């Protein structure tokens, strides 16, 4: 057992979480259907808006580019680790976080493995449905470079959201119930990140603030990159800025975790 490497342990956790995810197949099918419903609804709404307005582009977006934007949002949403704070709240309040002390992998790593399994499960179920409909509906050329930048931005989004959601989860050590805090934070991050409307559609003063915040890496940047709306010259600085946010977020999360875990106390078990 001692000879197991970190990678082997992570893989074992990943496999266990993946099996758990596949235990509820009906939920998986439903999840796939609902994931496809959001971009389709938005496409219908914006098609009606473009038809009424009678213009080819609104704030720099053509209708096909908006199609790409909304499908990309659905995909990038899967990479945002919102689930971490929810599972931490459960682990802290139920006392099950104690059981991790006896396991051969740190709590932080096991949470990460759980999220990775959730992502793999999503990609194998709902993700495929989203991609199939995306290819069938959207006819915007996507280059290999654009796709590569999109993937890099999703990785940055995952890292930033890991740090932020883990820190939010740590609040459970100080406050008994944090459902409201998590839910409202999640919704605000989604809105400010361009998860409902592209940031370019917001008033100038609002979009100027939103472009500085890390949440744009969750939705707006990957989606506009895939839609071909990010000038090539701006991609590298954006990726570097995002990487800095990711580093800051993970470092802050480790610092917060080191303090919060000292308060580990439980009424469960």
């Amino acid at each position, binding site marked *: 057992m001692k000879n197991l490497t970190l990678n082997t342990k992570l893989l074992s956790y990943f496999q266990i979480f993946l099996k758990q995810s596949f235990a*509820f197949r009906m939920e998986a099918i439903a999840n796939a259907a609902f994931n496809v419903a959001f971009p389709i609804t938005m496409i219908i709404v914006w098609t009606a808006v473009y038809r009424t307005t009678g213009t080819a582009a609104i704030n720099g977006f053509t209708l096909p580019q908006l199609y790409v934007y909304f499908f990309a949002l659905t995909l990038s949403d899967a990479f945002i680790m919102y689930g971490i704070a929810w599972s931490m709240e459960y682990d802290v309040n139920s006392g099950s976080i104690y059981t991790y002390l006896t396991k051969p992998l740190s709590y932080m790593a096991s949470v990460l493995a759980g999220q990775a399994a959730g992502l793999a499960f999503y990609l194998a179920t709902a993700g495929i449905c989203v991609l199939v409909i995306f290819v069938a509906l959207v006819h915007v050329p996507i280059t290999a470079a654009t796709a590569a930048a999109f993937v890099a931005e999703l990785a940055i989004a995952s890292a930033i959201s890991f740090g932020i959601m883990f820190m939010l989860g740590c609040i459970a050590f100080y406050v008994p119930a944090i459902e*409201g805090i998590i839910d409202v934070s999640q919704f605000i991050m989604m809105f400010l990140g361009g998860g409902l409307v592209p940031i370019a559609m917001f008033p100038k003063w609002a979009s100027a603030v939103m472009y500085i915040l890390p949440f744009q890496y969750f939705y707006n940047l990957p989606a506009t990159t895939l839609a071909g709306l990010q000038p090539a010259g701006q991609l590298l600085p954006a990726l570097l800025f995002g990487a800095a946010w990711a580093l800051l977020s993970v470092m802050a999360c480790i610092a917060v975790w080191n303090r919060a875990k000292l308060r580990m106390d439980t009424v469960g078990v």
Partner: protein
Amino acid sequence: MANVTENLRRLWLANLYAWKDALAYRLDFIFLIVDYFVFPVVNFATITIIYTVSSGIAGWDYYQAVFLIGLIGLVRNVVRYAVYPNGFVRAMQQGTIDGMLTRPYSYLVMIVSNFGSKTCIGAIISSIGIMLFALPHISFTPLTGLAFAAMVASGTAALIMFFLLLILLSYKYFSGGNWVNWLLNTILNANEYPLSIYGIVGTMFFTFVLPVSLAVYFPAEVLLGFASLNYTVGVVALALAMAIAFHRAFYALFINYASGGG
């Protein structure tokens, strides 16, 4: 009559208890209220952005679209206040509902009393605020106002019964029901915009398959003057017929309910 009074008293007390329970964790309660309050406000911001950058949706001016956003928020959260799918399914899975059913009250009152989300009140308040914001810009008569209220009430009753039936079917055949909550969110999100954008097929779908339009779109059409008052009778009759049919089907399933708990 005594039975009705007893059930209403039970409903009132259960609500009072649920409020006290929700207030046990005050900070979380405040955040949940804020959370729910924010949802309709964000939808309001979204529709405002759409109308700022474009001409919006054909036939609907900004205030009419805002009113629809407020109305869907109101109906969505009244339904959630009455029934929260996750709680109801969990109670059947764990068998905690069994004890409740032995009490001398209507089973419907027991379910509505115990499995609603009380923090939805935040969203109900903000939704009413959004409707009030749009109302001065909408002209309507007292009669259309009354017709509107009757349609919203009957349509919401049909929607609540529809979801109760769906939860029970989901529990019976899939042993779970989280997806009903997702379905509720998805179809209500789709109904935040005028149904005309989905064409006749979409309107039929959201009327006869997933009956949301009876509580939202059709009442809004009458209030905003898009449809005549005669429309009201048909919509209310259809909503009540659906509510009764869903209730009967629900009852038939519920008396044969098999507890998941020990």
